[in-house]
């Protein structure tokens, strides 16, 4: 069959060697053109099944489109574009990207344009492209914080591709399971491709019940980790590890747990930053000419219809002038808190109740947009028990003891356990947490040299508070002072029910900063960072890492208890 022989080979494109890339691309280009000619209108499609050819062709075209937009190497971008236009000249409809840039929440012009990145970013892009064969939207958004991105990519690469106890296809399948828990079709699509690429059995994708029993056993842990990690006990671990045919080994379990938490939190990031579908994935492109309809599939999935929600949170209507003041106010508060700490010493009881209050309040802080959007796009196939979701930690009737951070901390305990069972990962995660927690540029809106550690700590601890983790040495009153309600709504939604995040929520927190910045392009107007939109991404990184650490802590504590 001639078509088989003309099978497209994309692997050469990932090479760092320009000549290799050029050669690979030439091959691709020729093959595509050959096919295009065979299906071009006005030509009888030989004896070949035209439909099949067309399918293969459109796949290739989409891929080329992706390359033309998202390849860190200029030569590849230009060349793919050239191929596309020559295909178009043959009268074949070529795809165009849907959506605007890597994120729906961040205006495309603010994101880093591929091709205009600086040297460090370029190196990161090239790394990412060389290892993954693509430059995904998550990377494009995270590149606002290159230092973090580097650590993130390193960790992810290690988890997915380097030596580890689990086989490659298992790793991607676990990624799918975890992302599906949050109905994150973006990540699911991405990893379905990867899963098939490393030789996974397509049958598994029909649902968890088609996967090996071993992975099915992990379903329960996945569910709890994602939504109510505090319920994980050593019995659950025992269940997985007990000797039988489909049992897990400790090292495998740690690997799985790290993967699960990684993808749960990455799902949070995806929704929190409104990552658009990849160009070459479903919903990321269209063959239709523009102007027909302007929403993409993912928006529906996420309950965002491009129409303003009726239940807008009150914060959305704060006038501009007031907002400017709010930056000042926030800073003032931080300063006050810093100074007044010693004087106004809250009694111990007071401190204890503050945590409880914050915990309880976090319960009421929830988005008013509670509409249940049924998971679309067969994402639901990958997990069972769709009704299981986040339940507030402090809901009445359930008494789960507070997790004391001092008794089981990542630095002292978690790290040692992970590093022991899955060498090097402890170190990588440690670095990642560290970078995320300490990331600061000492700026706040238009103010420079601001110590933002207080704000960062408040966010971090607020997230841990929602998971019932308490720091003895933290005054939870600070959270109330520093984080306003709309921000809390956003945090809570992203961390607990990321699939419900909307652009409205995203816009509503710290919108004051956004507003205050209007019209200025030179002055860095955002609270933690210098690039527009970067602070929101920064916040998301904090959320992601704090959530991952919280889940990990619960899981690792259970494992430790099992081991002792």
């Amino acid at each position: 069959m001639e078509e088989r022989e003309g099978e497209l080979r994309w692997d050469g494109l990932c090479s760092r060697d320009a000549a290799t890339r050029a050669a690979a691309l030439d091959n691709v280009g020729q093959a595509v053109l050959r096919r295009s000619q065979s299906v071009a209108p006005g030509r009888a499609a030989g004896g070949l099944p035209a439909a099949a050819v067309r399918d293969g062709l459109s796949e290739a075209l989409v891929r080329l489109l992706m390359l033309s937009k998202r390849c860190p190497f200029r030569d590849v971008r230009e060349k793919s574009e050239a191929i596309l236009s020559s295909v178009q000249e043959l009268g074949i409809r070529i795809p165009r990207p849907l959506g605007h840039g890597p994120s729906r929440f961040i205006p495309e012009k603010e994101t880093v344009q591929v091709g205009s990145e600086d040297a460090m970013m370029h190196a990161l892009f090239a790394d990412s492209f060389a290892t993954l064969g693509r430059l995904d939207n998550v990377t494009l958004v995270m590149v606002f914080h290159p230092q973090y991105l580097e650590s993130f990519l390193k960790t992810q690469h290690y988890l997915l591709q380097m030596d580890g106890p689990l086989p490659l296809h298992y790793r991607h399948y676990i990624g799918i399971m975890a992302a599906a828990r949050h109905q994150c079709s973006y990540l699911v699509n991405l990893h379905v491709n990867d899963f098939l690429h490393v030789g996974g059995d397509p049958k598994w994708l029909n649902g968890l019940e088609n996967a090996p029993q071993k992975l099915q056993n992990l379903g329960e842990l996945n569910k709890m980790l994602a939504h109510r990690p505090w319920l994980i006990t050593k019995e659950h671990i025992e269940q997985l590890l007990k000797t039988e045919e489909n049992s897990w080994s400790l090292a495998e379990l740690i690997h799985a747990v790290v993967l699960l938490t990684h993808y749960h939190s990455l799902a949070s990031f995806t929704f929190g930053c409104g990552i658009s579908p990849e160009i070459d994935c479903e919903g990321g492109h269209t063959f239709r000419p523009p102007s027909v309809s302007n929403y993409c599939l993912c928006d529906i999935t996420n309950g965002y219809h491009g129409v303003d929600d009726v239940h807008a949170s009150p914060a959305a209507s704060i006038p501009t002038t007031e907002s400017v003041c709010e930056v000042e106010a926030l800073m003032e508060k931080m300063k006050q808190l810093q100074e007044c700490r010693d004087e106004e010493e809250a009694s111990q009881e007071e401190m204890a109740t503050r945590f409880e209050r914050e915990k309880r309040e976090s319960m009421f802080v929830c988005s008013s947009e509670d509409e249940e959007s049924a998971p679309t796009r067969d994402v639901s196939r990958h997990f069972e028990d769709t009704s299981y979701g986040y339940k507030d930690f402090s809901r009445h009737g359930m008494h789960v003891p507070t997790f004391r951070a001092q008794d089981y901390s990542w630095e002292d305990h978690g790290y040692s356990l992970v590093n022991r069972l899955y060498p090097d990962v402890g170190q990588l995660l440690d670095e990642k947490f560290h970078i995320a927690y300490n990331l600061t540029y000492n700026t706040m809106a238009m103010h420079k040299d601001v110590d933002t550690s207080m704000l960062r700590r408040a966010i971090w601890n607020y997230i841990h508070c929602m998971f019932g983790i308490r720091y003895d040495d933290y005054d939870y009153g600070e959270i109330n002072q520093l984080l306003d309600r709309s921000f809390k709504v956003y945090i809570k939604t992203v961390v607990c029910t990321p699939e419900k995040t909307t652009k409205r929520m995203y816009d509503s927190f710290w919108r004051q900063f956004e507003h205050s910045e209007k019209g200025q392009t030179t002055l860095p107007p955002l609270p933690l960072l210098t690039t527009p939109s970067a602070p929101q991404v920064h916040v998301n990184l904090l959320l992601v890492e704090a959530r991952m650490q919280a889940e990990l802590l619960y899981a690792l504590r259970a494992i430790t208890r099992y081991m002792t």
Partner: protein
Amino acid sequence: MEKMARVSTALGGNTLTGRTMFCHLDAPANAISVCRDAAQVVVAGRNIFKIYSIEEEQFVEKLNLRVGRKPSLNFSCADVVWHQMDENLLATAATNGVVVTWNLGKPSRNKQDQLFTEHKRTVNKVCFHPTEVYMLLSGSQDGYMKCFDLRKKDSVSTFSGQSESVRDVQFSIRDYFTFAATFENGNVQLWDIRRPDRYERMFTAHNGPVFCCDWHPEDRGWLATGGRDKMVKVWDMNTTRAKEIYCVQTIASVARVKWRPECKHHIATCSMMVDHNIYVWDVRRPFIPSAMFEEHKDVTTGIVWRHLHDPYFLLSGSKDSTLYQHIFKDASQPIDRANPEGLCYSLYGDLAFAAKESLISSDSNRKPYIGDRRHPIFFKRKLDPTEQFEYISSSSALSVFETDVESGSMDWFVHTAKQYALAGRPLAELCDHNAKVAKGLDRNQVAQTWTMLRIIYSSLGTMSSTNLNHSMGKGSTTLPLMNSFNLKDIPSGLGSESRLDRSKGESRTENILMDSSSTLINNEDNEETEGSDVPADYLLGDVEADEDDLYMMDHENPHAEEQEYSLPQEAFPLRHEIVDNPSALDHLQDKADSPHVSGNEAETVSLTPVESFSLISISHSLYENRLPSDFFNPIVRDTLLFYAEQGDVQTAVSVLIVLGDRIRKEIDEQTQEHWYTSYIDLLQRFQLWNISNEVIKLSTCRAINCLNQASTTLHINCSNCKRPMSNRGWICDRCRQCASMCAVCHHVVKGLFVWCQGCSHGGHLQHIMKWLETSSHCPAGCGHLCEYT
């Protein structure tokens, strides 16, 4: 009770007695501390704060300091310390960042004395000054250390480490003003209490957090630190730069370290995670703990020696909610279960063997080494007289056996490799050639093998029977005895260990085969026994000189078969255990004569296969019957396997290549591949690159064949910007300049590039050579005096 008597002397009359005992606490402990008089211990944790008195048989709860209806976080202790001067004074570090002092002398039920709420984060450690009553030091997660004067309400001074959270602070026991602080980022800082502005000294001690430190109670400058990187390190602070003098690698992150009183080199450690035991290490023996306490069921969180001058009683608290008193004599000593022997080869083939002295001495009672040039060099570790608690087992002896330089020579290997012809000629010629080569190197058996191969595989009738007879007679090899072939030429450097083991095993079987007389050879005591004389002499006769000396053998052995004696002998650094009868065994194997011969018992010393039936006659008759040539394949296969097994993979591979398809099918792929790789590895170690490449080329294994097709890419860096050249061309992508220009002709060098390592200029080999003939300066004009050799 002898033990008790010794204890009492150590304490100067104030005897501590007791046994290993424990009590249940209500909650997990975070830290413990003892009272100066060693009679009481305080246990602190998140939900517990109690004082127990240590009785003879049990712990008795004395006081619960956790009072009040609704205990506040101030009671949630991360650390506790009992003052060593004032027995009423305690201090705790609370998880909420408060430092609390307690006065047991207070009449009220609540003994809380003072509250210092200056730290913003959890306080990890508190520490009293060893001699000053009112001075308290604290280290906190917020990165600050604070010094409090208990007579004042606030801290006297604050020390900022500028490097993350403080995990431990410890006053120096000897230096009044000094304290050490350890940090989460791996640093250790030394401070002078009078100078809060900056530290005196800082160094990075560990990779990752340093959880704990402890000053040596006697040695002024010694500081022990323990970290998350699973190390315990002892630093000598007397020098200008802190010097790591000891390092102990444990199996889990180290949570606490405590020097053992009265034992200069002993230190107790417990770990933060996973491992629940308490270890006492002798820092000079970092590989095995000298004592181990295994009582706890969860991680140990606090350890403390019960008395400042008593090394036998250790108290510990744990997450499993128990408080233990460990008695040293009940400790398990891993050393008892360890196998204290070590064996190692040096680069030059010397063998070192270390074992417990007791083992060695019992062994050497037989004194077999007297007069031996290779007499083992003994090192005995003298017991340290200052160390009263040294274990007897810690004395060990090290023997070093030197190898005779010449005997280790592998010249024959190199020569053989160079001279063998492996392809390109008819089989018969190849065999003949190789046989000649082997013969030339006095490797008669190999030569013999080649000749036989020729007979078996090349056309028949070309060889006269006399010819055959001749060669056979010389080689003294008979086919039925093929399996007892022995090669002298085993590469001694590689794989010798395994060979030793093997020969040991084999010798046993041969011993069985042999008659009693030859068995007796192995037994030196019975050396003179009847009947053993001749075979023994024969067998041992051609040992290398030194071994002859060793056995005082009669060297003037008048036996025939001179050619046998002239065989090159590859001596072996012998492994200690088999030194008893080494030469005998070796010779049994080294000699081509077989058990068959020696088993003939007789005084027939002659080795000519008189009695053994000869191959020649058989093969002749076989050939006459026109047997197919692959009739012998199993035998040839066995031969090759045997050679490989003997370590002479060279012969095996060479035969394999020469015979090619004739034999290839007989041997499974994996074995072949294994042979090839070993041979190629050997060749490469002798830097016989061309030959190894030829072998690769000639090999029929796919895995081997593709070896010289892998990694044929040459990566180059641009000489200007030092970045890798990603392009194929000769122009660097980044700096847009031609890389590697010739300094003479200013063209790009595309072939051999030679450059001066002094000034890094260079160019075409020819050009530079020519240039330097006439001038001694660099052609680039940089003024450097280049040298070309």
